[in-house]
Each structure stands twice: as structure tokens, then as C-alpha cells.
């Protein structure tokens, strides 16, 4: 079965990203397909590569990057939400005149249409938020 996952809160502040990650892993293990993980609202903050959590804690961003790589996940950060919060890839940096970018491995920035498309194509859409 095809799942789409929506994450609406940033790493660490709320449990949303943690629960979504464990759900995603369990769904993959059960043989389901995750057609997209869409990061909206503060959820876009899961997509920065500049975090350095304490060594005895989980690394939420790297965990998504790694699972994305292993399972071929489409990790999409909403561009409008990302602009408000400062999540930037090379293209966005150029377009908005920023001197740095911070997107993490395996994440891409795209529009809200990607959320709607996922909701149309997936058998189930499930939201993790605050």
C-alpha cells in the first residue's frame, strides 16, 4: 500500500518527527511503499544539515537522510514554509540572494503542489504535528 507522510514540526522541540520516523520504518518493514515525506510548517527545520545534537542523543536530521538514502525516500521541504524559516538549497540561495545554504543530504525543496499530488496518489496520508 502507498503511504504519504506529513511532518509539521521541527526536530527535538516536538515528538512529531520521531513518531513519523518510527512509523515510516515500520511501514517499510511491512512492505508498504512511502511515496513521499512532506515537511510543512516548522517541519521544514528537519531539513537543515547544520544541527549538532548531543552525542548521546539521536540525530534526527541524519536519520532521515540515511533512511532516505537506504529506502529511496522522496523527502520534500515546502518552499514557502522554508523561506519563512531559513531552509535553503543552492537554487533558493541564488534566487533570494543568500550567501549560504543549509539543506541536508537527500532533502529537496519544492512547492505545496507536491503535498496535494502525494495526497492524490497515496492510498493513505498521515500527518504528524503538534
Amino acid at each position, binding site marked *: 500500500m502507498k503511504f504519504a507522510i506529513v511532518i509539521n514540526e521541527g526536530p527535538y522541540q516536538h515528538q512529531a518527527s520521531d513518531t513519523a520516523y518510527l512509523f515510516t520504518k515500520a511501514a517499510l518493514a*511491512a512492505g508498504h511503499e512511502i511515496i513521499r515525506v512532506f515537511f510543512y510548517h516548522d517541519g521544514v527545520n528537519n531539513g537543515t544539515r547544520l544541527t549538532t545534537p548531543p552525542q548521546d542523543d539521536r540525530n534526527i536530521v541524519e536519520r532521515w537522510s540515511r533512511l532516505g538514502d537506504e529506502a529511496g525516500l522522496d523527502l520534500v521541504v515546502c518552499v514557502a514554509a522554508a523561506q519563512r524559516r531559513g531552509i535553503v538549497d543552492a537554487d533558493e540561495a541564488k534566487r533570494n540572494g543568500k550567501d549560504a545554504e543549509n539543506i541536508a543530504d537527500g532533502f529537496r525543496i519544492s512547492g505545496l503542489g507536491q503535498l496535494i499530488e502525494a495526497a492524490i496518489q497515496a492510498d493513505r496520508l498521515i500527518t504528524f504535528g503538534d
Partner: protein
Amino acid sequence: MSMLHTVNKSPFEKNSLRTCLRLARPGSDILLIQDAVYAALPDTEFAAGMIEAARQHNVYALEPDLMARGLDRDKLIEGVEAVDYDRFVELAATNDSVQSWL
């Protein structure tokens, strides 16, 4: 059409679970996750509502979240079943859609 309802907020803090119970059709699957697992504690001011909810619906609580909060799966309100992530996925798959009461 059937719907899985997830709830992630403590019923002592926020109205999410109350609203879920008002708007879920009888016989729904309702899964307590994150801080909502506190709703499965017996003898609370919310317990009467939960006992009634567990009669009308199938109520589940996510075991990793129970454990994180020091709640014993064997001491929950009667009718509330502790489930793991595999079962969470199964509930999402067997229902036709998923509604998150945040």
C-alpha cells in the same frame, strides 16, 4: 468508509481527545500516541470519559510512548489495548483514511 483517529495530546492539557470522541463515528479505531497515552491512566478525572470511549470504540495506546512516560501496559483503563508501531501501520492500512487530532 472507516477512519483511524490518532490523538497526540494529553486530555488534561488540551481539548483534542475530547473533540475526537465527539466526532468519531461509533466503532472507530482510536490510537493514543505521544502525550495522549496519559488518557489511558485509570482513576484520573478523565477516566470516566475514557471508559465510555473504550466501550464505544476500539481504543489503542502506542506502547513505546507508554513506556517512555512510565505507564504500565498492564494497568491501563479496561479496554485500552497497548500496540506497537507494526500495529499502528496495520491500523492505518486497514482503515480507509487517517485523521490526526492534534
